[in-house]
């Protein structure tokens, strides 16, 4: 990851407390993070964890109560105007204008960011192409399907080429096909170098799209790192090897593998060996080479990693899949 120069976004000890008549709700309790240019930062957590509140503070929508946040060197609290010029924000609701056509809406967005008419037209056409909006861009937004509207929302968010794009639960409510389509679009943005701050409560989404992610629970970050790093903290990868010849070959292989220092544990199961290793990806070629060199032919080999769900379970004490229903 690019760690030269300035982070695009940094937060230090960010907190937010909501006061109701009866109680005090600490929605965000001291968050620290840095996001670097070109990253897709996945912000993962169950509904109600404080993700959206954090996002709204970072995007100038909610006043920062204590702590500090900087976007491209501008203080979010002190210079909201400069920050707004440099961020894109796509809320869960989207925000496209129902009575406008997609293209009109893009033009308005560009012009509100200070573009001239011609510049806005060029950029709109570019985004219509990139996000595949051509088919419906001249129709009114109220006639769009959920997936089409989501693509327009994202185009609106990047119309002014922001330094960082905030995407709040971009695929919530989409069917699997539209979700997959949107993932492709978001990956394209990543390839084009867009820095994205993505909140989601879908593990697959965080895993598929983000370079680095953080898990938030009860207003705090409970874990942060790349998906791989997080998984490695959890448990070892497992490699399952079955050999061509049974019996004797298997035992020899087991002894051989047990001697390797990158192998934590080997267990023999009826027709295969199960190895626990720290890092399956580097261990696998070594295992293959070792066995090959010793004349042991491999029938099948599978590598399985711990999933993000395991990570989530470990840090929050519950599985994300049943971590509750939307609160808002």
């Amino acid at each position, binding site marked *: 990851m690019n760690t030269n120069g300035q982070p695009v976004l940094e937060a230090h000890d960010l907190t937010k407390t909501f006061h109701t008549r009866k109680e005090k709700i600490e929605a965000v309790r001291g968050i620290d993070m840095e996001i670097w240019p070109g990253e897709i930062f996945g912000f993962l957590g169950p509904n109600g964890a404080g993700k959206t509140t954090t996002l709204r503070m970072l995007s100038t929508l909610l006043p920062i109560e204590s702590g500090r946040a900087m976007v491209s060197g501008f203080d979010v609290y002190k210079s909201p*105007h400069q920050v*707004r010029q440099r961020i894109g*924000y796509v809320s869960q609701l*989207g*925000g*496209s*204008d129902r009575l406008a056509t997609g293209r009109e809406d893009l033009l308005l967005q560009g012009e*509100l960011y200070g573009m001239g008419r011609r510049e806005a037209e060029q950029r709109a056409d570019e985004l219509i192409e990139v996000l595949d909006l051509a088919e419906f861009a001249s129709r009114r937004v109220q006639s769009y399907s959920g997936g089409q509207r989501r693509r327009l929302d994202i185009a609106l968010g990047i119309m002014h080429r922001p330094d960082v794009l905030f995407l709040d639960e971009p695929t919530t409510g989409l069917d699997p096909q539209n979700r997959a389509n949107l993932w492709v679009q978001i990956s394209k943005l990543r390839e084009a170098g867009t820095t994205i701050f993505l909140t989601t409560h879908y593990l697959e989404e965080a895993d598929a799209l983000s370079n680095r992610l953080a898990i938030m629970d009860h207003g705090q970050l409970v874990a942060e790192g790349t998906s791989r790093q997080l998984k490695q903290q959890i448990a070892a990868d497992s490699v399952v090897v079955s050999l061509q010849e049974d019996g004797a070959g298997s035992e020899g292989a087991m002894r051989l593998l047990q001697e390797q220092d990158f192998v934590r544990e080997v267990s023999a199961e009826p027709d295969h060996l199960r190895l626990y290793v720290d890092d399956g990806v580097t261990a696998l070629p070594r295992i293959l080479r070792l066995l090959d060199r010793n004349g042991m032919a491999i029938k099948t080999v599978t590598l399985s990693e711990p999933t993000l769900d395991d990570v989530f379970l470990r840090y929050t004490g519950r599985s994300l899949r049943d971590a509750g229903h939307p609160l808002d």
Partner: protein
Amino acid sequence: MKTLRDIALLYRRSFVQTFRVPVWLAISFSTPLLYLALFTPLLKSLPGGSEFPPGVNVLEIFLPGILALMAFMSGASAGFSTIFELQAGYTERIRVTPASRLALLIGPILSSLTWTFFFMTMIVVVAEPFGFPIHIAGLLIAYVLLALLMVLFASFSIAVALLTKEINSFAAVVNGINLPLLLLAGILLPLELGPAWMRVIGHFNPLYYVVEADRLLAAGHLWNTTIVEGFLVMVPLTALAVVWATRVYRRAVS
């Protein structure tokens, strides 16, 4: 100048979109027509008190009230769009842009105002053949006063919408305030027809001053204390409402 440009952009958006809701256009025009067609005949058969001298057409009393009612209703209902825009996420999206907060408020209001002026003019033109005398200068000044009225209540309505965030509370607050204001302004019939206590309470109602001034202006009077009072009440109140609503746009947690 960024503010002016933003106002123009958001004005254009609202103005163009009005054409896309033809039902709204039809209702906005037919409501005042219905008042004229179905309410004026009732007035004619009222026992002619001192307020209706024999030579005066009832339209001269009644039509300025209708114009004030149009400006007032157009303002008071402005928050309905705001509620829908909040729920569609549009408000939030637009608040994340660097667009001027004043422009977010005033662009759409000025668009509605344009439409209101258009309908008011149509009503005046329709009423003329039925005996409503048109005093151009007076009407123009009345339009300025009614514009202040419209902007005042539109700002108020939009701020209430941003604060209540959902249609039920919003409608309750706005309707709860509208009705007493309307009844105590003499908007359909002059308060002079009522007992003294009504006139006393009326003096605490900003709308009352507008309606009084508006009637005189429409009748061709251009300068007297009632008209000055109308402006003295409306200018500061409207300014206050605009400042307040802009602040709400700046801070609203939607």
